[in-house]
């Protein structure tokens, strides 16, 4: 557990030393979402209707943006060997790295999304639903992306390959995340959707670190 905390803190500290990396992810999120009103037109009812889908898709792309460096930087400077040789499970190391990735990408996206949602004309309850579903849904995206990152480790053009691998598996999270806001608009609550997103996150949490560890050991050979 001590190793887990050490690695988690290390990745947060590295992110803190390079605030630009986080800023790029958030800036991409803002720019990508603002493209839609510009291309579709400023009709308030249309924008409010597509807001949930647009924001969720943009959040998905933004969180994948930073994932190709998740294990690649450790692979390049030899730190991955030290993680492989650490006297505690590699599954925990993979989990620690995904957790740190979520703190510096998923969580800021969930905080930022309501501001953009307000610009799309979403009401207060929908904004709450947006923030809540992103907060619960983005850990799944970090874990799925982490698996894709570990599988594409060492491949050329790993970024594009990573997105291609990860995106299909993010579809369930995307569907339940985006439709939660629609059900909120139509007056039903979003508790069911939130529960399903939490279930997806827990299933990912319970299975994907093992798959990542296997992929990382392969990459280490």
């Amino acid at each position, binding site marked *: 557990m001590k*190793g887990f905390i050490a690695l988690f803190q290390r990745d947060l500290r*590295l992110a803190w*030393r390079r605030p630009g990396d986080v800023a790029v992810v958030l800036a991409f999120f803002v720019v990508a979402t603002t493209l839609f009103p510009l291309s579709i037109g400023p009709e308030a009812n249309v924008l409010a209707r597509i807001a949930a889908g647009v924001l969720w898709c943009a959040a998905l792309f933004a969180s994948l943006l930073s994932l190709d460096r998740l294990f690649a930087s450790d692979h390049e400077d030899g730190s991955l060997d*030290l993680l492989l*040789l*650490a*006297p505690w*499970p590699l599954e925990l190391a993979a989990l620690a790295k995904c957790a740190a990735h979520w703190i510096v990408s998923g969580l800021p996206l969930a905080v930022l999304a309501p501001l953009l949602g307000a610009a799309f004309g979403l009401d207060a309850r929908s904004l709450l639903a947006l923030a809540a579903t992103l907060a619960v849904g983005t850990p799944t995206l970090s874990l799925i992306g982490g698996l894709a990152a570990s599988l594409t480790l060492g491949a050329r053009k790993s970024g594009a390959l990573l997105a291609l691998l990860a995106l299909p598996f993010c579809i369930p999270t995307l569907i339940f995340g985006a439709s939660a806001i629609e059900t909120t608009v139509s007056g039903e609550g979003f508790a069911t959707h939130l529960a399903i997103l939490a279930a997806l996150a827990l299933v990912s949490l319970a299975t994907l670190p093992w798959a990542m560890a296997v992929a990382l050991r392969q990459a280490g050979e």
Partner: protein
Amino acid sequence: MVTGLLDVTELACRRGGRRVFDRLSFSLGAGELLALTGRNGSGKTTLLRALALLAPIDSGAIHWQGSDVAMDRERWRGQLAWLGHLDGLKGDLTVRENLLLAQRLRGGHGDGVAATLATFDLVALAARPVRTLSAGQRRRSALARVAASAASVWLLDEPLNALDMPGQAALRAALAGHLASGGSAIAATHAPLDMAGGRTLELGA
């Protein structure tokens, strides 16, 4: 059968379908240093990675204190300090942070970091980010990471790479101290280490 602390019996490794080495046996006791020599591509790095269980073993066995290391990987890993051809340091962290972090990743507390910084003449560099250091200074930092680890077996891949004369002297001093306190080391190297009591294993001979 010879029984040292570490016994390697009939080890064979393949890489990309090619046999790198075959039926390799040796043993290593407390306070012993084994230098791996041999031409480029003779399998020095592969042997070190196989010993650390980073590379798959084709056949043969590695025993530590009489028990097969493949049976209890984490216990074996706890005995190891690793210096690969990459330094394993984070460029954005300072030298001291890197050393403390490496200790904590192994479950340690960071004891001995200050002393090893002094051994490798890194005190003046300790607060500098590693990315601002030269190749030799990085190598010294990586060696300091190994020396601070308190592991019983050091696996070193070309430890003399990029080191200047004082750096090499610091490495010899650290190795001598490690061996004197009952530790052992295996080092793949081209240049002779010039250490008393060192044995040599030539690969690909």
